[in-house]
């Protein structure tokens, strides 16, 4: 099934925010801090205001009447720096000018006096006794409601903005364990590297603010902008054209506040488009340190797991509390435990803020958890495959008490991947090995609502009105397919309406692999409501019951006889016709028994198998084959889910082998495209197999489950497990660079 966005995207006619040029548009650029941590002593922009081509300059002196800090749970990030700067790249001032060059020249005229403060480059530095604090006073924040066993804590200690804790089961089971293993893992951070930059075009009039922006969550963004700008939400209209990738980064305020404020000051539309280098200074994935203590019986039965995840949140909280919640919650993996206790803290450092990134905490926890499963197997003299199968939860078993049942047969997926890889009975070749790993996360967001509207015109053309952003994942096609199927309409008659928060029904955001289950169900229900209205209308005309009718190709069928709808409609409503419309809504029901206040919508499950060859001289790891699989329940669009699984897997492959933001203290060393290595086609393993599983247990339309994040999760652990299988050496930090692997090989030979 060809994607609906194929004609626009393959001909280059798809319009993105970065392509928009409203008449009179100005260009914005920002001055960024050269210091990792400094007090802002003074800032004088008077010369910049006089510079040629300059229409507006924004500094901390222009924030009167605003609530000038934003964030998710914690409002700690200023629109422009106020009392201090907290990382190299923190925004200090912004200029709108006739073109970008004029704006950049004007920025050179902004005079700033900094008083450098000691920086806090790492988790260790931030948690050290007497460490400098990034915030003197706790910024305003909230803790969302949690259910049984879970809790959240604002600023539990200095330089920690949020901590999530979860516990279930009696902790005296530790005494019954035959073995307790404790291991610590390090997780490096990546940049999202979406190709369309962060970009906003804003047209702020005195009575009305309109923006076009590259965002994943237009409705929460609108709400946050209204709070920051102190205007009613109804005065802000957010339009979302095609979005050129996000991978989690394009949530909430990014380029929007500055674009709007400059537009308001200048009285002209303003385009604020970041460079790739600025993207590196805007948001990243979370680096992490993960300590896992696991108690097991001699036969390999898992008993208890206690873990502490420390996320490097960077300088501002952004989505970190939510990521912490998920990282803390997901540490248990798909296994059976008598006791789980986990905590996850967001540690503030003077580096680029970290936030949502594909996998959302689960990438970090899967790396640790699935590495440790193999380590435990080897310590017990068991095959890691057998150890997994022994402890996997069964289909339908709740993840933890109060949660929904697991909607994949985890062992079936593992079997499939192990078989495809050739894991069982593999020949032992020196320096070659195989590894398996399982990805497992709750999907569909926490307590996430979605609304949709489906309209059908007189001639049977269908409009899907939904807030899920087409960011590349294929949601616009898939959601149209859902409506088409309910209405018996050919897909080419269904269009996905552009997103405009004035008219599009509410959606919480394009995230959490939630498109097909959460929004998909809302669209399905909206289409069903529209169909009910159509059938009721037709039944009234034909003098039968709606249940006697079926709808197909814009005609109703009554005992085999077809009655076209268009003439019927015009007979009643006149020649101008009519539109049938249906509304749909979905949200998982609230439940205080569920640790996160609502049971998870679906379980995003994935499996990976890798075969590697390790060069004992250099530590170079070559992936010979990579097999990945996700269970999508039932694929609505096979091409779309395959694309999601493969794209996520290759991102995971890069994280495993080479891709990372490298720091020297607080200084980012490779924050630009030339130095920052992302995967290229040549990085694909010689054998790369992706298998879409349709196990059929999904809760979404037609049995669907979500995709998009799952296959990223298990890749790094599968490769590290394969390296240990090949060499006996265990690497506990990412990426598996030659020096790191070589060190592990040498450590092994000293043992």
């Amino acid at each position, binding site marked *: 099934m*060809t*994607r609906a*966005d*194929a*004609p*626009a*995207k*393959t*001909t*280059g*006619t*798809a*319009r*993105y925010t*970065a*392509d928009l*040029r409203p008449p009179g548009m100005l260009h914005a650029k920002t001055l960024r801090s050269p210091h990792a941590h400094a007090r802002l002593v003074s800032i004088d922009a008077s010369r910049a205001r006089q510079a040629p081509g300059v229409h507006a300059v924004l500094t901390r002196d222009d924030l009167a009447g605003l609530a000038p800090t934003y964030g998710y749970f914690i409002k700690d990030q200023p629109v422009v720096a106020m009392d201090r700067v907290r990382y190299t790249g923190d925004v200090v001032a912004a200029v709108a000018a006739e073109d970008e060059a004029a704006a950049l020249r004007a920025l050179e005229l902004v005079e700033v006096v900094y008083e450098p403060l000691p920086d806090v480059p790492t988790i260790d530095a931030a948690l050290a006794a007497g460490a400098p604090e990034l915030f003197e006073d706790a910024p305003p924040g909230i803790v969302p409601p949690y259910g049984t066993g879970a809790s959240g804590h604002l600023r539990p200690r200095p330089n920690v903005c949020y901590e999530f804790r979860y516990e279930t089961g009696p902790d005296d089971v530790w005494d019954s364990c035959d073995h307790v293993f404790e291991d610590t893992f390090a997780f490096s951070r990546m940049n999202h*590297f*979406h*190709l*369309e*930059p962060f970009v906003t075009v804003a047209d702020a009039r005195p009575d009305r603010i309109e923006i076009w922006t590259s965002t994943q969550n237009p409705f929460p963004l609108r709400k946050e902008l209204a709070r920051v700008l102190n205007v009613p939400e109804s005065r802000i209209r957010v339009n979302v054209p*095609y*979005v*050129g*990738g996000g*991978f989690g980064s394009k949530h909430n305020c990014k380029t929007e506040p500055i674009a709007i404020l400059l537009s308001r000051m200048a009285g002209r539309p303003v385009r604020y488009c970041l*460079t*790739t280098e600025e993207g590196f200074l805007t948001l990243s994935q979370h680096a992490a340190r993960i300590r896992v203590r696991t108690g097991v019986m001699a036969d390999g039965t898992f008993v208890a797991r206690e873990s502490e995840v420390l996320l490097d949140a960077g300088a501002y909280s952004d989505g970190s509390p939510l990521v912490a919640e998920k990282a803390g919650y997901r540490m248990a993996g798909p296994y059976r435990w008598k006791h789980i206790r986990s905590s996850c803290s967001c540690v503030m450092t003077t580096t680029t803020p970290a936030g949502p990134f594909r996998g959302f905490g689960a990438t970090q926890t899967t790396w640790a958890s699935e590495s440790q499963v193999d380590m435990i197997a080897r310590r017990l003299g068991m095959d890691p495959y057998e150890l997994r199968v022994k402890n996997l939860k069964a289909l339908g078993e709740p993840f933890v008490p109060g949660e929904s049942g697991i909607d994949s047969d985890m062992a079936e997926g593992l079997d499939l991947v192990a078989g495809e890889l050739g894991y069982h009975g593999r020949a032992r070749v020196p320096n070659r090995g195989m590894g398996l790993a399982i990805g497992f996360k709750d999907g569909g967001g926490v307590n996430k609502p979605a609304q949709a509207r489906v309209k059908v015109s007189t001639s049977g053309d269908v409009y899907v009105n939904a807030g899920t952003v087409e*960011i*590349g*994942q*294929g949601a616009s096609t898939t959601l149209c397919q859902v409506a088409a199927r309910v209405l018996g309409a050919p897909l080419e008659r269904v269009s996905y309406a552009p997103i405009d928060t004035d008219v599009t029904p509410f959606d919480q955001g394009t995230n959490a692999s939630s498109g097909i289950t959460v929004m998909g169900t809302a669209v399905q229900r909206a289409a069903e409501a529209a169909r009910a209205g159509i059938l009721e209308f037709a039944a009234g005309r034909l003098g039968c019951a709606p249940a006697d009718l079926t709808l197909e190709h814009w005609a109703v069928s009554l005992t085999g006889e077809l009655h076209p709808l268009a003439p019927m409609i015009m007979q009643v409503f006149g020649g101008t016709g009519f539109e049938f419309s249906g509304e749909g809504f979905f949200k998982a029901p609230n439940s205080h028994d569920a640790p996160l206040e609502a049971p998870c919508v679906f379980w995003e499950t994935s499996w990976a198998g890798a075969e590697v060859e390790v060069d004992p001289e250099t530590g170079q790891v070559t992936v010979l084959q990579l097999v990945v699989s996700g269970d999508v329940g039932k694929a609505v669009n096979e*091409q*779309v889910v*395959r*694309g999601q699984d*493969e*794209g*996520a*897997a*290759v*991102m995971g492959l890069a994280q495993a082998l080479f891709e990372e933001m490298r720091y020297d203290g607080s200084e980012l060393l490779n924050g*630009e*495209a*030339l130095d920052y290595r*992302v*995967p*290229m*086609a*040549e990085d*694909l393993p010689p054998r*790369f197999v*992706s298998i879409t599983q349709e196990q059929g247990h999904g809760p979404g339309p037609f049995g669907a489950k979500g995709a998009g994040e799952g296959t990223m999760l298990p890749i790094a652990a599968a490769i590290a497990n394969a390296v240990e299988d090949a060499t006996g050496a265990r690497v506990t930090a990412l990426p598996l660079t030659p020096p790191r692997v070589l060190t592990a090989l040498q450590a092994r030979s000293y043992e």
Partner: protein
Amino acid sequence: MTERITIAFEVDGRPREEEIAPSTVLADLLRDRYAMTGVKTSCERGVCGACTTLIDGVPAASCSVFAFSVDGGTVETIAGQGAPGAPGPVQRAFAECGGFQCGYCTPGMIMLATALLRAHPDPDDERIRSWISSNVCRCTGYQMIIDSVRRAAELLREEAR
């Protein structure tokens, strides 16, 4: 800084004469003056290849080419390959095989594939990988792009028959 120069060149078969500043970058000229927004810019360092056009038939990152250097030459962009409703063979192959997701790398990838298939009408997978490794796609994981290029080769051969 106020110096202007005049260049004459061809864009997608159409002759153009422009007065430009010597510092004008080709991608900006195409996007800003001709509204050819199918030419995408992303890294603006000649790394990602989103802005790939064919200059005298050779793929080049138009973000890193001065406009004056195409004086007297030809530039081919995605707009010359076809339009919605009348897509060219390479575009059709990418649509059919799902060789795109967010679409931001797609025009550059299609131009790169076009050049590859002119030079090598029947490339093997290794050659395809090698060629398209000059451009970044952050979404697909590349396999479906490789499939698309292979399919495009078939379609071009069918068309040549």
